[in-house]
């Protein structure tokens, strides 16, 4: 079992190389940096040990604690703003080389980014623990299927790594998720199955809503990614024009098929699907544009740790202002006028996104049929709207302006015509114009 990381402080264990790959991969390959006595290379030509820096075990303070814990200790007013800022910055911090491991990246001026990782031995230990848990589970369930093994892993991860669990220590989020991955890898090896899996510790239950399109291959890929996540089920909404997608959906045991009848647009399908869910977290994904499970996991995690709506944090596909379509300008102004300039053009009109049960109850599942309006409702009602994962996504149709009028009407009903932009200086009476 995991003791809270104390033993990892023995000399020589708490060091990891400063490298784009991070210590994780090194742990997998088993190549561990030797001490001075075991140094390789030509004699007399000393290699500087400058690329070595202390691991997180040896160094304080950490940039961020475990997300769920630190967030909850903050005062409520500041909560969503701080979160949003942190989330907005994140895509910039990401480095291509660390996509898988999610190590924490710290920028320093004039130097290469420093990736803080846990020591290699700590990761090896997590893998061993995972392996033992996996083997033990397999011994207890000799007739189990690979699917069941994966479900057992998700349960196990929840137990071990959720806040308060035995594996939850005050590690930076990136190190935690790397540890979870290693643990999951060990677990699956222990069970003897090899199924791709995206371990993400959740306190709540989760499901997904998918709107099927005509592209069956894409749907297969979308569902394949969902299979890796700890979702209880996913609602596949199948409109009349995509009836053949049903067969694809039926191949997956966790699919719940909902016929949508005549086509009324993807948003209407999402509203229909959302009404059939009862989990704490609902993830909405596009049935025609697959997104990697690793990114989808970030949406689940964001909502699980306190967000009410986790939007797609994408930065790609957003052009400079003068090249943007009218619909994006409207969304950006909607965010601006509701005090969320930081969200830019990001909204419920772009997939994927995840909602908390609280959010769905507050605005009603049916309101998702009008994404811009639903988005405004979330903001106006003070729900915590922030960013989840970052997925490249392209809009299939422009939004209609009627829906945006509805969105503003909704906001103005609650906050007044000028929202938070008063006119206190004009002498309108002098011109005969009525006050707003």
């Amino acid at each position, binding site marked *: 079992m995991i003791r809270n990381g104390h033993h990892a402080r023995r000399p020589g264990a708490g060091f990891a190389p400063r490298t784009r790959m991070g210590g994780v991969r090194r742990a997998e390959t088993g190549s561990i940096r030797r001490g001075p006595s075991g140094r390789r290379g030509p004699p007399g030509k000393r290699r500087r040990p400058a690329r070595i820096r202390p691991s997180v075990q040896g160094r304080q303070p950490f940039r961020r604690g475990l997300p769920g814990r630190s967030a909850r200790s903050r005062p409520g007013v500041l909560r969503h703003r701080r979160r949003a800022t942190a989330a907005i910055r994140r895509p910039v911090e990401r480095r291509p080389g660390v996509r898988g491991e999610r190590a924490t990246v710290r920028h320093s001026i004039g130097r290469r980014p420093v990736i803080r990782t846990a020591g290699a031995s700590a990761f090896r230990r997590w893998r061993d623990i995972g392996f033992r848990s996996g083997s033990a589970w397999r011994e207890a369930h000799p007739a189990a299927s690979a699917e069941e093994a994966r479900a057992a892993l998700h349960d196990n991860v929840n137990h071990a790594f959720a806040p308060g669990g035995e594996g939850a220590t005050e590690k930076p989020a990136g190190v935690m998720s790397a540890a979870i991955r290693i643990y999951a890898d060990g677990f699956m090896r222990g069970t003897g199955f090899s199924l791709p899996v995206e371990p993400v510790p959740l306190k709540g239950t989760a499901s997904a809503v998918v709107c099927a399109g005509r592209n069956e291959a894409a749907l297969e890929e979308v569902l394949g990614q969902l299979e890796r996540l700890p979702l209880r089920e996913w609602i596949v909404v199948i409109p009349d024009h995509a009836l053949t997608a049903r067969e694809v959906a039926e191949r997956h045991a966790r699919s719940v098929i909902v016929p949508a009848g005549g086509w009324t647009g993807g948003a209407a399908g999402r509203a229909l699907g959302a009404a059939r869910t009862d989990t704490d977290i609902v993830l909405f994904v596009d049935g025609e544009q697959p997104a990697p499970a690793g990114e989808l996991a970030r949406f689940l995690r964001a909502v699980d740790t306190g967000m009410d709506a986790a939007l797609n944090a994408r930065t790609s596909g957003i052009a400079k202002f003068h090249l943007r379509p009218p619909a994006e300008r409207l969304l950006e102004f909607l965010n601006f006028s509701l005090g969320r300039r930081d969200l830019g053009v990001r909204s419920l009109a772009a997939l994927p996104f995840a909602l908390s049960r609280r959010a769905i109850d507050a605005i009603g599942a049916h309101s998702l049929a009008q994404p811009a309006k639903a988005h405004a409702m979330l903001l106006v009602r003070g729900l915590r709207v922030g960013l989840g994962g970052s997925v490249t996504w392209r809009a299939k149709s422009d939004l209609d302006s009627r829906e945006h*009028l509805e969105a503003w009407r909704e906001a103005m009903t609650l906050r007044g015509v000028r929202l938070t932009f008063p006119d206190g200086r004009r002498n309108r009476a002098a*011109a005969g114009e009525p006050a707003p």
Partner: protein
Amino acid sequence: MADVSVVIPVMNEKRTLRKVIREAFRVDRGAEVIAVVNGSTDGSERIARACGARVIVFPRPLGHDVGRAIGAKAAGGRILLFVDADMVIPARRLRPFVDAVRNGVDVALNDYSGPVRIMRVHGVVLAKHALNALLGRPDLEGASLTAVPHALSRRALETIGAESLSVPPLAHARAICAGLVVEKICRVNVGALNPRRSRKGRGRSLEHLIVGDHLEAIEWWTRHAEHAGSYGAGGLQSMESGGVP
């Protein structure tokens, strides 16, 4: 009766006022120049009278844009040109707006959108683009009655009501909704000409005022689009096809 009326709201602009009035008279032979002097303590009124303008005086400040509405009410011309007293625009650059109205345009706008070749634009620039998109006129980009110079036909003034000019985006929405001919004419870079914001440090509150004005325009539109049962001059269709009407 004069053919062209030039409306100039004035609040403590003695530095540029003389030149602005001189250029206004040069726009058209026999032009009527109306200076709406409000809250001025620097002798602007005396300068305006000395330069031959018709002067309307308010001892207290009227607030942003209200002077335009009052000047428009007093104007007798067939064409109304609106300029600000704090920036000197040569008459030759003002004439195209007057000529456009003479040739059948009802609302002749400055084709100026502010800096847009960037990721994050100024709130006012965003508001103007969003309103035009919502009104089904994305082709107007950021052109709006919020920016000077612009010219109106007498027909436009009577249709939208002079008083609505005190909230320019509202007047803008009314003009488009009424089916008036609203066009952007040519570009006068008022951003480069206008030192006001940096000088007086009221950028933020002005941004909020103008964004709020646009919200008023949107609110007006939510009510009138509903009554008219349409979304402007082919608005909805053009939104859906992503094109220009």
